[in-house]
């Protein structure tokens, strides 16, 4: 049940989010990364949402859109509440009544019609495969690793390289894998956080049926957002789900992967919230980086369980924040710069976008590079 919102009509807000369980300790707000730049105080929402008659007013507050769904509040809450879900519940009220920004509406509509939030046609989802020797999965053919490509990776020209490099690495390792050439559709991670509950439920149902049909031992996701969503919000999925860094670490350990080149660089790994905090995967990406000869792996002070959110999640791709204060991604890049890191390694498409933007804005392009893990690894393999 972890993280599931139950949509029984009869449940009140208070019951749905266990508001009476809250002891007002303040750990949620205390941990919330965006409090340094916005007015969001998630504990206040947990407290105020207890009065049903206040809900509409609460939903009007701009800060409900500041939440990045990093889940720090939920991880830290001593009473098992998921404070961010209250914000999502309020967003839902707006979505239901159509009072949302056009960017959000378009993203939701696009998922409904095209299976991706980027307003791109369904048919071009697999264009990234062009010119590559990709093994395709068919429902009736058994396969070890069934790949699920994140919408953002499938369509964003900056990120398609993740999928492409993945194929190169898998071919090199001689792995048993398959990508999907039809029917693949948004996992709904951002749909849920944007508050479109009904659509999300529909997506969960459809994707579950679709993925369950494959005779695959497990599903491998490229984005931590899909990974965490499948793990936590797809209760009827019939196969285990892994993040690709887990698979690569496994292939490395089995001796199926090795690096032909050294990399004489100082590298720092940024833990994505959805991979680390939310899913507990910390060691595999580090193991991969440490296996590269020449790499000097350094650590952020705020790493692993204390990693700082890059503000890429929670639907923030479609909602611009009004705050003029320093972006967390910039804080992060400055920290990396202070460490003398030449490469900021990440394992999440959103982190690539936010951190790379920040790096450019800070003018560090000459000194450092933000690289998705697959980019580094495929170059070395």
């Amino acid at each position, binding site marked *: 049940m972890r993280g599931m919102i139950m949509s029984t009509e009869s449940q009140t807000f208070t019951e749905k989010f266990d508001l009476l369980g809250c*002891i007002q*300790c*303040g750990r949620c*707000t205390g*941990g919330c990364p965006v409090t*340094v730049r916005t007015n969001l105080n998630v504990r206040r929402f947990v407290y105020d949402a207890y009065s049903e008659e206040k809900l509409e007013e609460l939903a009007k507050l701009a800060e409900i859109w500041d939440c990045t769904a990093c889940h720090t509040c939920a991880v*830290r809450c*001593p009473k098992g509440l998921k404070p961010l879900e209250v914000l999502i519940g309020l967003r839902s009220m707006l979505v239901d009544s159509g009072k949302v920004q056009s960017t959000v509406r378009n993203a939701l509509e696009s998922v409904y019609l095209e299976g991706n939030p980027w307003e791109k046609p369904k048919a071009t989802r697999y264009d990234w495969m062009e010119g590559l020797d990709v093994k395709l999965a068919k429902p009736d053919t058994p396969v070890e690793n069934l790949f699920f490509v994140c919408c953002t990776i499938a369509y964003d020209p900056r990120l398609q390289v993740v999928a492409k490099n993945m194929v190169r690495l898998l071919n090199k390792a001689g792995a048993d894998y398959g990508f999907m050439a039809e029917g693949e559709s948004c996992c709904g991670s951002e749909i849920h956080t944007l508050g479109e509950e009904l659509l999300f439920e529909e997506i969960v149902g459809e994707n579950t049926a679709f993925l369950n049909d494959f005779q695959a031992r497990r599903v491998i996701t490229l984005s931590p957002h899909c990974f965490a969503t499948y793990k936590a919000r797809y209760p009827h999925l019939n196969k285990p789900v892994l993040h690709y860094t887990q698979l690569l670490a496994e292939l490395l350990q089995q001796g199926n992967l090795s690096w032909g080149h050294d990399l004489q660089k100082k590298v720092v790994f940024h833990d994505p919230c959805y991979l680390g905090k939310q899913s507990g995967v910390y060691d595999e990406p580090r193991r991969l980086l440490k296996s590269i000869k020449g790499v000097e792996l350094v650590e952020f*002070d705020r790493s692993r369980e*204390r990693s700082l959110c890059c503000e890429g999640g929670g639907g923030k791709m479609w909602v611009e924040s009004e705050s003029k204060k320093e972006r967390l991604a910039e804080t992060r890049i400055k920290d990396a710069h202070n460490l003398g890191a030449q490469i900021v390694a990440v394992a999440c498409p959103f982190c690539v976008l936010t951190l790379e933007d920040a790096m450019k804005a800070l003018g560090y392009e000459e000194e450092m590079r933000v690289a998705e893990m697959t980019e580094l690894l495929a170059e070395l393999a």
Partner: protein
Amino acid sequence: MTEKPKLGVYICHCGINISATVDVEALTEYALTLPNVKVARHYSYMCSDPGQLLIKNDIKAEGLNRIVVASCSPRMHEPTFRKSIQAAGLNPYFLEMANIREQCSWVHEDRTEATIKAKKLVAAAVAKVRLLEPLEAREVEAERSALIIGAGIAGIQAALDIADAGFKVYLVEKSPSVGGRMAQLDKTFPTLDCSACILTPKMVDSANHPNIELITYAEVEEVKGYIGNFEIKVRKKARYVDFDKCTGCGDCASACRVANRFASEFDEGMGKRSAVYLPFPQAVPAKYTIDPKSCLYLTKGKCGKAPKCAEVCGAGAINFEQTDELVEFKAGAIIVATGFDVFDATGKPEYGYGQYPNVITGLEMERLVSASGPTGGKIKVFNGAEEIVPQEIAFIQCVGSRDKSVGVEYCSRVCCMYTAKQAHLIVDKLPEAKVRVYYMDVRAFGKGFEEFYDRVRREGVRYIRGNPSEIFKRGNKLVIKAEDTLTATPLEDEVDMVVLAVGLKPRSDYRTTMELLRLSQSPDQFFLEAHPKLRPVDTATDGIFLAGCCQGPKDIPDTVAQAKGAASSAMIPLAKGKVTIGAQVATVFEATCRGCGFCVSICPYSAIELVTVNRMGHMIEVARVNEALCKGCGSCSAGCLSDSIQPKSFRDRQILPQIAALGVLR
């Protein structure tokens, strides 16, 4: 049965607990229609003196020979009514209780339905009581000595009380010294007594008392038997130092080739000790111990040319040939006083414990402020590589308490107060320092606690209501990320040192003790008492008692109170010299028993064994019940494939008619 059964049925109102929901008059009338029932009455409180008198008088006047009491659960009052019918001349086991309170009035609302159910319960009790047989409780001799496991303040206090009363005590302590956690503390809240000053005399007494046999660096390995007659085996671990020869001079520890190289357990790893060591200066007994895990000679087989310790010991006490020793004795009662561990703060990685040397636990703080501690009582810590005297100090309460995210839901009861105490000690030692306490609630419930909390605040300790979420580093400062919930202000507070008020947890090795004594656990994993209110020091096993933090988090006053309670309960069998053995035990019909041993494996009290008997010239195995161990729980009976083992008063021929009667309502 020779006599014809003549039954009396007594229906209790329990104030209005029963009568508000069950029509007691209708029930009484109904009871009179049941077979063999001569008398039926209802009364406001059957367990009261007049209530009992009613029964006694009827037994005499009407010649009743079987009694049904329809009232509450038998747990509390079965003994009461057994005594009263016995006083009137009946066998005490000619009693059956119908539970029309917990199983009826308390759980139902509809009066008509509840009354029908009560009638069925009474009819069932009537059906059974007619078939009961007279039973005799037996008495056996009890050993007039006690075993106490664990010599923290709980174990020491219980030992002293029992020994003072004139009984022999075996006090077994796992570590090389008695004292437990209290020995590690500096001052104690709320009175600020110096812990060592009040504890050391008791530690010394526990070693010198003529009635106490103190066995340290030892573990109980086997416990057999039952109340009054426990048979115990204890393993005394080899100290590699001759206990009688060692004078405690400490020459060995200074000479040790690996002197002061190992983390001192007593100083929570903040100080160092040698491979041969005394845990702390006031340790009792003042005898050195060689740690086999750190000694060069014992780990590598070689220590230079010859072990230094042996070279310097004037008393010739070092003995590497020493081996573990097994001690066996009997005891009439056992007190478990094995104490607690503190929450492992690495379980909350967001606080950076283990990563930043200036984030420490409350127990480490005790050692840091203690004059006998690793810094001689000076408050200083490492900030990175630099040793500093902290000027900005924050305490965080509830670390590993009241926190589902680490699986600990309970309040640890002492952390609020020890935090206040430590904050006070810092203000005392570093008057310039700024001290704040992050809290979510302050629980100052004990005698003098609220007054102490008031005092500490007025001394300038700032209390900030908010439980911090994270600690990270900025420059050379620790940053506490929290919210002041009273002003709804998220904040980043820069400090030099953080003290985590870690909660109390069951000991990491609790399973060994639990399995050894077959104890149960409450949901918080501490050992379970027999009843949360009325039997707080008893366990489910007669003759085994609990004292101190092994039963749940407690401060010293509560620990000592419970230890004294456990001591006095344990002394009951010792003082009587006898124990009564329940009569409702399982019996074996040897003629049909096939000796399969299934019951032996089922019995939770290990009360059954297989014995060989001669059946018409054939030597065969059959089950035999140790009546002193059997609790009459009936598990064996439920499991037996040939119906050959059944508890007295719960035989098939007694309970089947009872069950059948539940189905019909005439």
